[in-house]
């Protein structure tokens, strides 16, 4: 694996969108999510020499840094803000009926995620937004891989139930 000092830019390009989505899901605040995302990349850049490939992937290492920064931000603020980001439109869909159906489903998912607990919401973000595999998930959360799988399945089941309820 390429060391982070040499491939930091590639790591940044590959992860910046997913990382922002994950942090934003945790913080539910655009400005804070931007600050924490930038802070996470800066910390990763400054600590890139300390990355140990034997302990996991660069992606998991980066998301671990972001998680700590986001949790520190949450703890510092001691409060939460409502999920208020604007979901981008779907420019590829021109059919008004299809567009309306998908908008409705997105609305259901947004509400369903709002109903999830923070830990479940974090798991969904790490899995669905960041695309981490279960080993990376375990590394970020500091649990075993089997435990991460169990937690993820539980969170996914809750999300599906919440979506059914809101349907």
């Amino acid at each position, binding site marked *: 694996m390429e060391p982070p000092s040499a491939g930091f830019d590639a790591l940044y390009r590959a992860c910046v969108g997913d990382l*922002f989505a994950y942090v934003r899901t945790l913080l539910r605040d655009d400005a804070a999510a931007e600050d924490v995302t*930038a802070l996470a990349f800066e910390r990763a850049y400054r600590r890139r020499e300390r990355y140990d490939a034997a302990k996991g992937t660069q992606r998991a290492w980066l998301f671990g840094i972001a998680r700590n920064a986001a949790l520190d931000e949450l703890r510092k603020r001691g409060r*939460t803000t409502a999920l208020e980001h604007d979901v981008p439109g779907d420019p590829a869909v021109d059919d008004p009926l299809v567009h309306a159906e998908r908008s409705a489903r997105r609305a259901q*998912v947004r509400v369903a995620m709002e109903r999830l607990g923070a830990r479940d919401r974090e798991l969904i973000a790490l899995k669905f937004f960041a695309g981490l595999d279960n080993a990376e998930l375990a590394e970020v959360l500091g649990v075993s891989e089997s435990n991460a*799988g169990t937690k993820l399945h539980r969170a996914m089941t809750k999300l599906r139930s919440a979506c059914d309820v809101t349907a």
Partner: protein
Amino acid sequence: MSLRRNRLDDTAVAELDALDAALRGEAVAPEHADLAMLVADVRDVAPQATPAFLAELDARVREGFPPRDDAPAAAPRAPRPRRRLLFGGGAIAVSAVIAVAVVVSLGDDQAPLTSETVVNEAAAPAASAPAPSTAGRAGAAAPEAAADSSESSAAVAPAPAPTEDPALGRERRSVERSATLDLTVPADEVQSTADAVVRATDRVGGIVQTSSINVGEGTPGEARFELRVPSGKLDEALAAYSKLGSVANRTQDAQDITSAVVSAEDLLSDARAERRGLLRALGQADTRREVESLRARLRIVRADIARREAALRSVRARADLATVAVTVRGDGDGSGGSSGADDEGWSVGDAARDAGRLLEVAAGALIVGLAAVLPLLALALVAAGTARYVVRRRRERGLDAT
């Protein structure tokens, strides 16, 4: 995956596998179509960073995150000890503990690092157990004997010398002298040293009364001698013997046998006087029976005189010839020539022994140091793990509050 299967049922495992497939953009089984749709829907609501933010962050990444002008001046932060520094400090602490242990150990055990000559204190009895009639003289000689025992290479200490005892009214006292001498030589020099002992004895006019030499492969070798040397040349003989090897032990004893000599002389004198009286009586005898009786008595007295002369010679020989017991032992390692050099300097053999001893002490100190450090290290690891857990829990407390 195997661990996951241990906790999740097959349905759950299949769903997670389908989830991974859907996230990778792969097709999923029809029964998991809703899961694929859920993935698409959730990804549709993924928060998006604004282009302005991305542009700004891109620039900062390209520039290597320079300090921002609008960033609040951060208070100077005390440098956090890095793990390497902690390990380095730990290593230094362990080294210090070991070094202190080594120093303490060496301080308590200096002797093995220096060449030493084992000197048997048995020389003292020569002075502390003097001959009965020379107690005063022997008592005065005690310090000399003690000094001799502390210096193996010292000159021969004067043995208790016979002295005049006015109470006895004799011009010369008879003293029986004896000595023991233990020599250590390299194992391969026992035989040659034994030969040298014999030659030295011959030079002073002494005799080898008994000898026993045991030299062979795999044994350090030993030679024992029971020697008789003229008492007047005992000191000369001992000096010659002492030069043949390293003196491990040396004792001298003197016993006044003047009484025994005088007694033997008196008995002999009495017998001779009786013979003279018998001879005079024989010259004056008148009858045959009287003559026969005196001659029988003379035969008895002559035999008695012969016995008493032998006894007198024997007791005088005890004073004339000193008994010397010499033992020559080969040293255990058979390193030739090193023993004789022990008293003269620090040899390569000494250095090797000292180095071995130093390593032995260092290894012992290391073990002791580890015994002391390992529990502390275990406690530190437990504390570090606990601290990490506490920090994680504290961070996640903010997550639970949302």
